[in-house]
């Protein structure tokens, strides 16, 4: 996906949100609608500016690789920024992020029905194995260990509730 396309989608989403929120705000009393409406207008403006900026940057980049001739501090900051950007250019394993994301979503949606004690070790073990983070033994130890530790930490020590599910 190009940089401009990514930003177009983001701007479109923000503008859509602005539209929906603005229409919604029309039914509020004046005092309640005042600040939200100001913010919505600013937000919409910024969304457009963001898109313009990405187009301008893309063009600049196509033309020339700009060089900075700034003093020490700025160039240092610049160089760390460059390092960050290089790091980001490493190929991202999108499939892995999506699958891990799905595991998280499933964990959250099933947690209340299946309960903490069944789902937590399953999720931790499954995720560790899928990510190839450690070997099987270590994954089992970590999964069970953390389930117990977190339970004690929250429930026993601090008296905060934990979603136990229908079986417990």
């Amino acid at each position, binding site marked *: 996906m190009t940089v401009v396309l990514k930003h177009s989608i983001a701007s479109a989403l923000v503008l859509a949100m602005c539209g929906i929120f603005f229409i919604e705000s029309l039914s509020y009393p004046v005092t309640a609608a005042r600040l939200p409406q100001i913010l919505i207008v600013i937000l919409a403006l910024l969304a457009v500016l963001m898109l313009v900026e990405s187009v301008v940057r893309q063009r600049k980049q196509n033309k020339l690789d700009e060089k900075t001739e700034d003093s020490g501090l700025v160039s240092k900051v610049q160089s760390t920024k460059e390092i960050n950007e290089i790091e980001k250019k490493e190929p991202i394993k999108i499939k892995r992020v999506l699958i891990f994301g799905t595991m998280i979503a499933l964990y959250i949606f099933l947690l209340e029905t299946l309960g903490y004690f069944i789902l937590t070790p399953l*999720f931790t073990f499954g995720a560790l194995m899928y990510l190839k983070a450690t070997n099987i033994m270590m994954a089992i130890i970590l999964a069970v260990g953390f389930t117990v530790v977190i339970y004690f930490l929250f429930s026993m020590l601090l008296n905060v509730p934990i979603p136990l599910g229908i079986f417990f």
Partner: protein
Amino acid sequence: MEDLLVGLGNVLSFSNLFFIAVGMTLGIFIGSMPGLSATMAIAILLPLTYGMDPATGISMLAALYMGAMYGGSILAILINTPGTPAAAASGLDGYKMTEKGQAGKALGISLVSSVVGGLIGAIVLLTIAPLLGEVALKIGAVELFAIAVLGITIISSLSAGSVVKGLLSGTLGLLISLIGMDLITGTPRFTFGNIYLFDGISFVVALIGLFSVPQALRLIETDKEAVEVSKIKDKILPSWKEFVSLRMTLLRSSVIGVFTGLIPGTGGDTASWFSYNEAKRFSKEKEKFGTGHAEGLAAPESANNAVVGGALVPTITLGIPGSSTTAVLLGGLMIHGIMPGPTLMTEHAGVAYTLLWAVFFSCFFLFALGLLYTKVAVGVTKVPSKVLAPIIILLCVIGTFAVHNSMVDVMIMLGFGILGYLMDKLNIPVSPMVVGLILGAMLDTSLHTSLKISGGDWMVFLSSPVAVILLIVALITVLQSTPFFGKLKSLVAK
């Protein structure tokens, strides 16, 4: 003065000291792990403080912040991959020392500098905050509105990347904070009939999602190879003579750190680079910088810990957090229903003054625990980052649930997590949004009150000289990033 003593008494209780030690240990530990930040550490551990006394909880989180600032440098020194952005400057000379076989000495200098910086920051905090707290009481709604506007524009403009994106993120945060029942008119705003949204989106829930989930996803995005770390063989603490030779560097850098911390939007990373450059400029041995020179390590290290004290000044006196870390720290108060604002120092004096002292005392724990930690530090750097990802997720799911005992909160948390991840991919900074989430309520009420006083006349904001100055500064902050201002600058330069 009386409050100051009450705070001192509070902090010296066994449970407070114990949790400061716990926070410090966790902070150093998490800060020293590859890919984990102080902000995330505080966010993820926020729910744990729910069951505690507010003063104890916030003290623990402040100690954690202090510890993570030092912990980030351990990685920079040992393997040259800073654990926090603030520690990047420490890697320059710190890692060179490790290469020379002086890893122990480097960690020692780093620790001593961090403690000195932290203490100086804490002393400034203890002196300025009570005074400013008094002044803050006299601030009217008009000025408060201007302060909130200035706060959000500065943070948006100074955060990394494009100003437009920073402002977009901040404005979005403000708007999201308005979701829920409007306290003044009783109108439910942007709830779209959903009953869960009536109380608004919980700040704590949003920030756990924004800081933890993207971090967990980043940890698994790429395959990073483990780095070999050599064992620490040499002596750790610097000699008294070495320490004395560093005194000017330490003092100068700490002062730089405190002042950088005071300004909203600038934090540890700016402070450490700034003080590194200054130390080099004032040094008699400029050529030694970058080759493993003690001064080059002491400067950024003392500065980034001095930031903690400085950054807390506007945060607790005015309720304007200068960075995402201090914003998250305020979450530790909000989880107990304490709203940050100019009245915090008076209405919740017990909590506020305990926090001030906690920052001070946490420095001593930093010294003791930091020294112990050097023994295991090498081992911690070997923890594979992919193991951390599922554990972070577990902690934030269970933690979020614990806040209000609600699964809907957990889903909202995940939603913010995905939002944070996508924003990261577009290089939109998250911190302005978090600060916006905090300032939204303040902006809304102060605007409402101001306009009520004036009978709906917007000119009221031009009637107070203080407000006018603040608003002009805010305007300049935004305009300085526009191409127009760049042209103007070049014209003036000619």
